[in-house]
């Protein structure tokens, strides 16, 4: 099932949907209704998590980059 939201008002299977209402649809039915401009896909939580992990990885890579290394010496801050 695909979690979608109504893009404009429509009726389906006896239910009326207003813009923004959640709609659970099968794969093909989602493509049909999306093609007709009735629904839009809701970003899945898994996709959001993947995006957050990707952002953390980028930050870690940037810190590990030799060009971003801190100056030589003791840089332990408050532990000095």
């Amino acid at each position, binding site marked *: 099932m695909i979690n979608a939201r109504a893009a404009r008002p*429509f*009726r*389906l299977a006896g239910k009326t949907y207003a813009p923004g209402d959640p709609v659970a649809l*099968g794969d*093909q*039915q989602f493509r*049909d209704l999306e093609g007709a401009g009735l629904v839009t896909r809701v970003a899945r939580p898994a996709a959001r998590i993947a995006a957050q992990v990707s952002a953390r990885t980028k930050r870690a890579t940037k810190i590990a980059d030799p060009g971003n290394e801190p100056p030589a010496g003791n840089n332990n801050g408050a532990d000095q």
Partner: protein
Amino acid sequence: MTAMTSAGTTLGISAGSPATFNEVGFEALAPYTVIGEITDIGGDIGRVYNLVTHNPLATRHTAKFKGSYNSGSLNLTLAIDRADAGQILAKTALMSDSDYSFKIAFQDGTVTYFRGKVMSFPVNPGNVDSITSGTITIEITADDDGNDFVEAAS
């Protein structure tokens, strides 16, 4: 099995194409979006062959052959509901040259699947005592292998 009325019959539409022309292929597209407010499904849902005749002088009889065939068409009558998802999909199909998939579910649970083109969807406002209605014409198509219908018993 006995006679039945057509009450409860529904017609669903999908832009998807079945991977295989059988019940499994068509059912993989489910759920179909039901076209709402239909009051009548007319037309000829089934293959009809043209008759080819030959009259040899020597025998005087008419020899008969089966020529080309036509898989038929549907003429739907319905009340216009501009928010009905099925009617909206039918309008989308009208503007497309592509075949769409259809599913008729009968009262006894029997299902017929086929592919077709939506050829027309005019609106008929009628008079002051009329429901604003429309008609949809669907021409049923067959593929190059001669597949046109899949029937699934309940």
